[in-house]
């Protein structure tokens, strides 16, 4: 039997707490940085305990802002993240349904075309994608933020795998009762996929929220910036002290929504993460 002595257990816990402290340190310092005055930041060292400027700094970030008010950027991020998550799920559900429940010529071709998108992350094809988006008048629009990122091979595969595990008898019974394919989809497949949809939603929401390069290219108007990319313009350059507290408040505001989603929906998040990578 593996011995579990008290000293070893305490030691393990101490190491774990130390590890967590190291992992959380950057966030803690960022939070502290968002609660102090500019003067306190310019004169190092940074205090290790929050100051009393929290409300002031967050108010300035949310409603003032150097480029666009953070509130506006949060709104754009929310639209982008929700649009990408919902869009990807809808598109993938429909195509997985078609691939699993229909036999049509070119089915394999469709499957492989979708597979190809896995191999082409936006980072490797930015210049031509940008040109196409500009030609389609998508610059500075919410559609421009969402559409190019909405096709998803991963989500399609996930739903395909899941549909293949659903017993044939269900479809057979539905057919015998005279239900058409869309009726079967709506009344049987969708309710069965509920957990999968929710788990995938968590992952895709975070994916959409955390996009950086694409919003950087497609939004030139500060009012269309998302928070994750908009913060870049708020970083003080090396020789100007800028307004670090407001920048740090913005960073915390950018982390908060996805972090809450992860913590509140932890079980779904873990399920989604492990299944999308299978």
């Amino acid at each position: 039997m593996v011995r579990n002595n008290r000293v070893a257990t305490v030691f393990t816990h101490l190491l774990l707490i130390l590890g967590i402290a190291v992992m959380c340190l950057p966030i803690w310092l960022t939070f502290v940085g968002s609660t102090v005055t500019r003067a306190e930041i310019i004169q190092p060292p940074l205090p290790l305990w929050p100051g009393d400027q929290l409300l002031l700094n967050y108010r300035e970030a949310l409603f003032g802002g150097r480029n666009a008010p953070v509130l506006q950027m949060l709104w754009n991020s929310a639209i982008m993240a929700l649009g990408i998550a919902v869009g990807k799920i809808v598109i993938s559900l429909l195509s997985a349904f078609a691939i699993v429940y229909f036999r049509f010529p070119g089915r394999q071709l469709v499957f492989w075309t979708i597979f190809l998108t896995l191999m082409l992350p936006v980072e490797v094809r930015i210049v031509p994608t940008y040109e196409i988006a500009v030609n389609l008048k998508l610059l500075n629009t919410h559609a421009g933020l969402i559409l190019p990122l909405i096709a998803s091979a991963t989500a399609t595969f996930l739903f395909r795998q899941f549909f293949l595990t659903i017993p044939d008898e269900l479809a057979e019974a539905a057919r015998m009762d005279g239900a058409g394919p869309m009726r079967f989809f709506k009344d049987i497949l969708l309710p069965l996929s509920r957990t999968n949809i929710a788990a995938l939603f968590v992952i895709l929401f975070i994916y959409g929220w955390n996009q950086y390069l694409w919003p950087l290219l497609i939004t030139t108007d500060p009012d269309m910036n998302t928070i994750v990319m908009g913060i870049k313009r708020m970083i003080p350059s090396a020789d100007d002290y800028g307004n670090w507290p407001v920048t740090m408040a913005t960073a915390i505001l950018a982390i908060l929504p996805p972090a809450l989603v992860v913590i509140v929906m932890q079980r779904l998040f873990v399920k989604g993460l492990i299944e999308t990578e299978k």
Partner: protein
Amino acid sequence: MSGRVVFRSVWLPWLLVAPQLAITAVFFLWPAGEAILQSTQLPDPFGLSTQYVGWENFDYLFGDRYYRASFLTTAIFSLSVTALSMGVSLLLAVLADGVIRGSGVYRTLLIWPYAVAPAISGVMWLFIFQPSIGLFPYWLKAIGYNWNHVLNSGEAMSLVVIASAWKQVSYNFLFFLAGLQAIPRSLIEAAAIDGASPWHRFRTIILPLLSPTTFFLLVINVVYAFFETFGVIHTITAGGPGQSTMIMVYKVYADGFIGQDLGSSAAQSVILMLIVGVLTIVQFRFIERRVHY
């Protein structure tokens, strides 16, 4: 598959896959085709006309000292990010797997950095290591070390590696923990009865049984370091100082959007596509194999 009940319709399946195919065609296949086309062309300085140049862009790229350097930079960067984030998360996962009480709490506290965008991670680490106001440079100065990643390329590389690896620890931790929890206790206990020390047990039983997870994470982390760390580089160093943190994905952007060298940028895109293709195939082969176990 053959026994599966199917619905019959000629037009419905096409209607169902239409949105996916339309997006794929417009935003994936078309730009990929454009990239391949542009990689064989050279626009004139005013962008009014283009000329077919065949392999010239590629020849030029491979002759370019900076491009070859960015290969090496990318390799060093990805290997460091992968090693650091996987090492730290394996250690944490082994520790968390060993405790009976409170492992749920530890997991919650360790997974939420996953939610932090690479760009935001970059901003936070930049704040901590900012040469004139950062807390760490202040501490380092106290022990006689002068930190300045704006001028020192080694320090710049370390900083982008730390900022990229930090964000990825949560992800690796979750998978390592799941992998560890799937190892039968009886094996470990049998080894313990035979007198194997904890380190020996780890090396000869746990590590080999964890190898599928490790290999999977290796691929995922390399892909992450290659393609998703753009935000970290852009916020912290913008490829500098000099070209010391110019990873390939960043160079596509820098040459295409800042340098306006479209032919070269397109050729780089094509090379990156080939690399993603290879990585995807490696990933899929491996996953197929795992499914058959």
